[in-house]
Structures are given as structure tokens and as C-alpha cells.
């Protein structure tokens, strides 16, 4: 799980072009969307695509997205439970 979390941190920084953020700046319990990283709904969709490509995780509705993308911790748990491959 720890490995997955640090992997996801790096992927978030790379996928979303967070040039002024390092993976270490992302706190697992912080609100992911609308939180300190300044992420919004388009970033969520970009992460949806990344999760589908890299982990085989499909998130295709808003309600599920809101739960999964609440925090990095919730995201990692969902990927851990539903993902079919590492990257």
C-alpha cells in the first residue's frame, strides 16, 4: 500500500503538470479536489484516464468519483481493491 501511495503521488504530479509540487508535498489525508493542490473537475477526469490506462480501474460516474477522489488515501484504497495490474 505504501508503495502504491508513493507511486500515485508521483503520477499525480506528472499527469497534472504540478510543476511547483513534489510528491512529498502531497498529504494522504488532505482533501484532493479543491484542497491545497488546487485541483478541479478536469484534473479528476485526467486522473480517471490515468487510472484506467495504468491500473485498469474504471471510474465512470460522478458519485463514485467523489468518493474515490476524496483524498489520496481513499484513491489508493480504491485502486488497491479494484486495480487489475500495477504499472
Amino acid at each position, binding site marked *: 500500500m505504501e508503495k502504491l501511495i508513493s507511486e500515485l503521488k508521483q503520477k499525480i504530479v506528472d499527469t*497534472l*503538470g*504540478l*510543476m*511547483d509540487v513534489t510528491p512529498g508535498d502531497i498529504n494522504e489525508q488532505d482533501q484532493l479536489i479543491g484542497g491545497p493542490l*488546487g485541483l*478541479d*473537475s*478536469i*484534473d479528476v*477526469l*485526467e486522473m*480517471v*484516464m490515468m487510472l*484506467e*490506462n495504468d491500473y485498469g480501474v474504471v471510474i*465512470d460516474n*460522478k458519485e463514485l468519483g467523489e468518493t474515490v477522489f476524496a483524498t489520496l488515501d481513499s484513491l489508493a484504497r480504491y485502486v488497491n481493491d479494484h486495480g487489475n495490474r500495477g504499472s
Partner: protein
Amino acid sequence: MTCGAYIAAMGIISALGTGTDSTFQALKRCESGLVSVDFFQLNRPEFPKVGMVRGTIKNTLPRTHELARIAAGQIMAQCSLVPDAVVLGVTTGGMLTCESLLKAKETDPALFQYHGLGTVAEDIAELVGCTGPAITVATACASGNTALTIALEMIRSGQAQTVLAGGADALCRMTCFGFQSLQVVDPAGARPFDQNRSGMSVAEGAGLLLLVSQRPENPVAQLSGGGLSCDAFHASSPHPEGNGAFDAMAKALDDAGITPEQVDYISLHGTGTEANDKAEAMAVNRLFNRNRPAASSIKGATGHPMAAAGAIEAVISALAVSKGIIPGNTGFSTPDPELNFIPVPGPIQKPVHRVLSNTFGFGGNNAAIVISETQNRTSGAWARDVKGGQEPKMGPMSVLGYACVTGAGTTAESLDAFYKGQSLAGMIPDKILTDLLSLKKVRRMKRFSRLMLALAVLAGKNISGISPASIIGGTGWGSLSETWDFLSRLFAGNEMSSSPIDFVGSVHNAALGHVAMELGAKGANITTTGGDASFEQALWTAGMLSQKDHAPMMVMGADEHHKDLSFRFDMSVVPGNTASDGGGALVLVPGAVPGKTTLTPRLFMKNDNNVPPQDALAGLIRELPEVNDRYGAVMAGIPRACAVRGKALADALPHAFSSSIPILDYRCLTGQFATAPAVAAVLAVDAIENNRLPDPHAPGQYIDLQDRGILLLGLGRYLTAVEVMPG
């Protein structure tokens, strides 16, 4: 009441059918035209239905061009008038063809010659014999109504008597997968305003209206007003309370000189997405209060044909007025209690006098128009009476601030190099752009948007206390990085999905949406495009709108160089030569402000290779009779792809002007990119303020302008002239 323009003839093609008659019949039957796309492969069997034009469409030219040609052909069959100008909204242009070419790794620029959005308007102009300006508006889904609003101003200002205006777009992978990636496509087909709606249906089509100033024999209706606004809120989501939509509607009604009570029908944008329909319902409810007229969106029937949406809906609005029909909101069945908004579910036949038609798009762009019945008059009193042969002049615009970005650096470095006779060619390092902006702001932007935003920030620095409300910018090729990255990822992933961030950033108007957010500019926000005359198109548009708005504007032009796409799209870009990009921005205010340098658009016409240079220049001389006393120098832009023709014209200039006026070929300095004229305009303004221009033939020496102006000439596919005069 403000005068309008008569609609003399109309052409339409959409998922609902071809021509006004079959469209009217389909509307009466409340048909839906949504089907599965069949002319390119979608590797997702479950891909939702789209608003595809059925039947065989020729493929001599890209599909968008062919759809526009069909609509234009309908107009030509009704009316033989040759328009003075063509104004089209287009967002995909030759994209469908381009996708296939890129997939096949083709590199021959000749194969991509119809990729540019502007080539649709140029092709239609050629088809109908128009030799005046062909302006292309790329404000995403608001493009069609924006084009119609500009066309109306062209007629009101007397710049044109007849304008062919509208919009066209074809389905392509970019729009199908782009909207899919945003999860805003309804698998069941668009159900605008329905409680269970879950998105739009991507579509295609074309709508054209022939607008005339003088009353024709049997006018269909009138285009009587237009209103433009920008949310300045988010790149792809509307303002949650529909503030920008409200402003555009209110402006359109005011422009048409009518009150909300006088509207009989609202043709809603109603895409079927949760956010659009909610924002639009709120804005409409606020504007119309308790007296909302009948309203419906036809996008459950046609799908959402992007730039063609406004134009197709304008044609249908004119049918509503001329045939007395209120179209039904196809797909709607369950009212949404959150919206307090119930559209007309099925068609109603009843008299309709005035229609308000809405369109909203990415970048927070909003455009609404008013279509009215034709008053029972026998003369052209509704339109401004322009005396025969006396073309009204577009007024000067005063320069309050300016900035440029070139290979030499930002404004100060560029001007320094210019006066030293050094090259400005090259590409400014990305680090300089991001240092000017904040990393948080630019993280989702690639080079084109960063260039535009940097220009706006730089130009805004020296105009304290003035906030431009309108932003009008030209670009030859738009967001090349996002386009390339989106398609590369799509192809790499077996055409299943691609990046939503790249899709939102790929639209030509994404950059000006960011500029509007940065400056809080909620007025008109217009992106024009058309190869080497893209900046001139922006300047002309600004000139026309300034006569109406009388407010400060930012007028810009920029292009990014992209190593994979620039040489394919822009025939002036040759691999091996110095890769160049950049742009310029000017803060302008209408009228001549004492002490301020002015810019005045003077000539915009097709540069026909078949017309001998001296004859082509005769038109210029007619327009500018005082050339010898008025200008101290000419700055000419000769795109490399038009070098032979451009040089012939430049060589013929001294003879035409009967003087040895110094000519500076500015592309030798700026390098080759479509919006080099925006840089040239900034250089010219600074040169006027210094009363001297570097001597192109003697580095380090200067031409004394002797308090005269500079004539900026564009010698590409269009012959353009802009004068820059001392204040």
C-alpha cells in the same frame, strides 16, 4: 431601434436533413437525427450515438468544407448576390482528414493544405465569388452566433452590404473522444433539461445565412441583434449561475432594441450536460422572471454541432418566425425539480415574431442573437443607407499599451534587437514565459496559451487603471501542442481515449479564455483564425465592434511553433530554417486620443494571383490616395509560401506610390509564423513613438519618419493594409 440585417437566403445541413424544407418537416414531426457514426472507426462499440449528417458526402475536400459547400449551394440556388464578406464560425476545419493523415504519418504539407479552420471560409468565398474579407471565428461552441454578430456589425457599420455568415463543423475523432473524455456525452442521446440528462450528443452540420443591408424581395426574417460576453470563470465549465449567459442574452435584446416581454421563443443552447442546462435555466429564469416565453433546445434532435450550432439554430429560428413553429425539445420527458424550467416538449405551430437564440462554449464564451420577423416596409429603411460607391471608413483606434514576445525576448529585448537591425527570429524559452506567469496558473497550459497569457500580462502592465473588457485575438494555428498530444495519445491507445486536459486546451479560443480570467474581462472574447491574416482578422473585428462598444479592448495575435505540426500546416515554415514564434498585443481604445498613436484598418481583400500586381495595388491606391505625404515607410509581411507574389507586389509598390518609399520586409526579422503581423504592429507603434525606423538596407542606420505614419501591408493570400499614425 437599432437597425438589423435582412436574411435574404439560408442554407442548412444537419442530422435532421438537408435544406430548410426537410428541416422544417423534421421539426414538425419532432424527429431525432441521432445515429451511430459510420465514416470513421470508433474502437468502442458502446460509443453513444451522434448527430451525423446522413447520406454520401463528397470527399474532394475535408468534410467540414463539403458540409459548408452544401449549405452555400442552397443559398446560391436561391439568390445570385455576391457577398462582400464571408464570416464563419469553425472549430474543426480539416481535422477529420488531418487525423487520418497524422495516423498514416504523412508529412507532405500539400496534403494538409485544408487543415486550417480559415480554409473553410476561404473556400466558400471562392465558391461564391467573394473577394472581400473571409473571417473565421473560433470561439468553440459559441462560434456560429459570434460570427453572425460580427457579420451584423459589418453591415451596420457599412463595411459590407452583403455578408454570407454562419458556421460549419464535421464530426471527427477529436470532438468525439474529447467530449467522451470529459464524461459529458449521454449514452442515451442528449435529453436537454431532463432530470435524467447526462450529457450531450456530439454532432456536425452547417448553417449559412445571406445577410443584406437593403430589403430583398422576399426576406425570410431579420437578424436584429447580437450580444457577446465571457464568463472569465473557467476553461470549460460555465459560470454556475449563468452570469455570462445572462449578460449575452441581455446585450442581444438591448442590441435588438427589444424587451424580454417581446420575445416569443427562446432557442436554447441546451446541450444536455448537467452544468450547461442548469446555468442556462438560471440565467433565463432571471432575465425573464415570471414571464418566460416558450423555450426549447433542438439538440436532442440535431445533437450539438459545435460551431455550426448557432448558425443552424439561427436558420431554425428564422423558420420559426417565417413559418410559425416552435420546435420541440426532443428527448425531454421528466422535469428537473432543481431547474424550475420546463421546455416545450413537442412542436407547436403558432405565430412567432421574435426569437432569442443562445450559444455558449469553452473558454466561457457566450453569444446570443435575436431573429425577428421582417417589418412590412418597402424600402431598406431598417438598414443603414450607404450611398453607392462611398465605402465608409473604419475609424482609428488609439494605442494605450503594447507588448510583444519574439525569439529575441519580451518587449524591451525585442525592440532593442529591432532598432539594432538584429534578428528577432527564434523561440523565447519556456522558462521566461513561466517566470512571467505563476506555475499554478500555467500548469494546464502549453506553449500557445502561455504565449498569449504572457502577452496579455505584459501589455496590461503599462495601462494602469484601464481594464480592457473585450479581448480579440488572432492565431494561425492555435494550440498545436495540445492537438498533437491529444491525437498522439489517442493513436497510442488504439483510439480508445485521450486526455481531457489536452482536449479543453486544444480549442483555438482556450488561450483567450485564460486571458479573460487573468484580466477579469467579461466583454466580447473573440478568437479569429485564417493563416497569415489571422491578426488582421482580429484587428478588423475589433474595428467593427469598437464602433458599437466604445470601450478599451485588447487586440492580440500569437502562434506557437511545434516541431511536428508547424511544417505540416504552415507552408511558410520549412524544417531547417530558424523555428520562430511569438506574438504581439495592443490595448486599444476607439477613436483618436490626442497624443496617442493610432491604428486604422484600411484594406482587406483577396490577393488573387491571377490579378497583375499593378492592378491589385490599384485598389490599395484608391483606398489610400494620400500615400506619399501620409507614410514615411512601409512594413510589408511576405509569407515565405507567397514569396513570389509578395515580392512582385513589393517591387511594384514604388511605382504604384510614385515614390521611393522605404519598404521593410518584416518577416526577415521576425521569422516565419502566421501572426508575425501582430509583432510588426507592435514594432510599428514603437517606431512611430520614436519617429524612426531601422533602415533595412543599412544596419545601425535609421529612417527618419518625419512625423509621418507607417503602412503595414500583408502580402499573403489576403492583401491587407493597416495604417499606424502618430497621435
